[in-house]
């Protein structure tokens, strides 16, 4: 009985390992991976790549219905890392060696290329608010200061050359809510701020860009975070600041021989006009 169990397990393990040895087959279908509707990353990506179409009545997201929907950056990463035929897009701050970032129109996604505008697939990280309490204003000042922007420069692109930050340590509670892409950066900022001003407590809820903006409008949070441009309706009701720039990296499996895509090819892949890896 134990023997058969071991045989079974070894069989499954061998089967799982065996696929690693297979060569890349360019004739196979592209497994397009997208994010859920409402994700800031998806919103920015479809706008930048022309996947969003304007009609008389409004705008339409033309992402193919065959696209696999992954509900988080890590799910996209894991899916692409495990699937030789997958393509996906993630925040550049989350990029790691498990996957390969493609050049878009021949430009490598690096911080320099995003800062000087050569790499086109980039979007702003916004913070938005209605009115700021004294302590919330202090925190926003910190984010936009030299110290704050230095933390931003860890994985993202800072936006301002700012002065050094000093605080008179106001106390109070700040609720920050919104984009799941901005949250990791915001947590780092909060930790650094807490060292300078231990009197403030900051609560971060990662609930998505749209929810963050809505929370700021409705007053359920003090500061909203968005990983995309604000909509016109949101801009009307909120004061907003760009706190960082973030690239969107287009990623494929490390076994995939493709290194470069053009924006047109990317659009065609995501709209569903191109379905095979023999681009």
């Amino acid at each position: 009985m134990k023997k058969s169990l071991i045989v079974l397990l070894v069989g499954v393990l061998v089967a799982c390992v065996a696929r690693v040895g297979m060569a890349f087959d360019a004739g196979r279908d592209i497994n397009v991976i997208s994010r859920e509707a409402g994700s800031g990353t998806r919103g920015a990506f479809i706008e930048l790549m022309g996947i969003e179409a304007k009609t008389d009545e409004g705008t339409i997201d033309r992402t193919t219905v065959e696209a696999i929907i992954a509900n988080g950056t890590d799910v996209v990463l894991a899916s692409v890392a495990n699937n030789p035929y997958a393509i996906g897009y993630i925040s550049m701050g989350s990029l790691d060696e498990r996957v390969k970032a493609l050049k878009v129109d021949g430009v490598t996604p690096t911080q320099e290329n995003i800062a000087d505008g050569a790499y086109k697939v980039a979007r702003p990280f916004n913070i938005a608010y209605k009115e700021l309490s004294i302590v919330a204003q202090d925190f926003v000042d910190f984010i936009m200061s030299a110290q704050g922007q230095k933390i931003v420069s860890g994985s993202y692109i800072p936006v301002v050359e700012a002065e050094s930050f000093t605080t008179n340590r106001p106390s109070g509670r700040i609720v920050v809510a919104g984009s799941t892409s901005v949250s990791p950066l915001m947590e780092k900022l909060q930790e650094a701020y807490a060292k300078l001003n231990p009197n403030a407590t900051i609560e971060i809820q990662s609930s998505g860009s749209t929810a963050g903006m809505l929370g700021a409008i409705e007053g359920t949070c003090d500061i909203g975070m968005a990983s995309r441009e604000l909509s016109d309706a949101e801009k009307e009701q909120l004061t907003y600041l760009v706190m960082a720039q973030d690239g969107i990296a287009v990623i494929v499996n490390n076994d995939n021989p493709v290194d470069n895509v053009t924006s047109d090819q990317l659009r065609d892949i995501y709209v569903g006009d191109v379905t095979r890896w023999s681009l």
Partner: protein
Amino acid sequence: MGARLKFSIETARRYPLSFVLKVLVVGSALLTLGALFFLLAYIIVNGVPHLKPSLFAWKYNTKNVSLVPALLNTLIIVGIPLIVTVPLGVFSAIYLCEYAKKGSKVVEVVRITAETLSGIPSIVYGLFGLLFFVIYLRWGYSILAGSMTLSIMILPLIMRTAEEALLSIPTSLREASFALGAGKLRTVFRIVLPAAIPGILSGVILGIGRIVGETAALIYTAGTVPRIPGSVFSSGRTLAIHLYTLSSEGFHTNEAFATAVVLLIIVLLINALSAGLARRLGGGN
């Protein structure tokens, strides 16, 4: 018992159907255990190498992604629903088995609603918790909102197992107690309930298991703040939600697996503890 697991060609020829059934039964059990074993091996192999002391720091920050606050929150979110639900569930089972008249309409409705509750998906509980506890009662994303949502969620589980345990106790035991002059309440609390405790505990174990592993019902009720809560009205993430949020932004996959290992160890400990408890209490009778 062991003889039933032997496969002999002779019996196979005489009772082919019996032989096939035996193969199926043993094969299924092997399949179940195989799936479990493979899953555990996968988590352990991926998680154990990343178990670092920094994971157990008292305070969470983005560098250590400590699981201690989440662990404490988990204990609280397991504790409150059990305190609320175990008495409720056991009492209603007592009513159904010991007090209600046979064929009573109330019993019928309670059974149907309990079955309905047990079928409701956790995401629907999450939606309900969000609409009722978080928004309508204005509790906000809080430990309390999460706990109350889970209380309702595990109620049918506790009820059903308690009821089954009560039903499995022979009527003769009750009759003997009555014959000795004990009243109804005394019989229930001194005779029937003690005998039913192992069954009830198995329901509690299942309930704890469900709570510890729950994400969908908590994400919109208890929220995701990785901190030790100041009160039951502050937001806090359980270990399972911690795992979910860790894995959803791509920075901490290794730590997520290590957290999964810790979570498994906790589940194993709870199970072992309850099983030991059940054996001791069961042996006392």
